[in-house]
């Protein structure tokens, strides 16, 4: 979607176990949910 909208140089970083140990962990594990950092640039 980012590239479709016109962003370039899209990067995705390593996952974070955002929900580990929280009450939402079970639901997160069910769908393999993690937090990720993203980076993209608007063309100059």
């Amino acid at each position, binding site marked *: 979607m980012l590239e479709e*909208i016109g962003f370039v140089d899209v990067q995705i*970083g390593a996952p974070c176990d955002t929900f580990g140990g929280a009450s939402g962990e079970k639901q997160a594990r069910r769908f393999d949910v993690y937090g*990720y950092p993203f980076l993209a640039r608007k063309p100059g």
Partner: protein
Amino acid sequence: MGTDLPVDPAMLREEVKSKYRDVAANPHGEHHFHTGRPLAERLGYDTAMVDAMPDVAVESFAGVASPFRLHALREGEKVVDAGSGAGFDCFIAARQVGPSGRVVGIDMLAEMLDKSRASAALMGLAHVEFREGLLEDMPVEDGWADVVISNGVINLCADKKRVFQEIRRVLRPGGRLQFADIANGKAVPASAVRNIDLWTA
């Protein structure tokens, strides 16, 4: 609502407001996610920077990763935080860009805006301001921002395409989008995607 959207944006917005109103008022209450200093440590934020903040500036933090992980901000940059909540990432950004930079946090929730403004005043951060608004229609002029950050908020918007178009509008040519958000590795059933209660569960 657009026919291609899984849920009604206005209804989802009210659900999100209800959830995060509680995070603002009861940051140590029962939530399905971590909050505050333990979460910041889990997500790899700079410990010294977080330790230097007063509790009120950190306790309602509810991000999902660090938007600063792949690229730090530069001194003097102008930053927009799309969905700034209680302001935690704005305060991190403010330290990185320094007093010659500017940070504008956008949030739709009065309780979060009140909290973030109080924290900014407490910390003496005159180059940070908070504005009420929606991610789909941010109160920021075209091309103003060097960087747009966001943390765990875009996944709570029904029309993500519109949000990313709006982010692109406020960025200057060559500007960066640095955001953190959740993604699922296993497919979520369509029935669950259409269930608005599950968006904030």
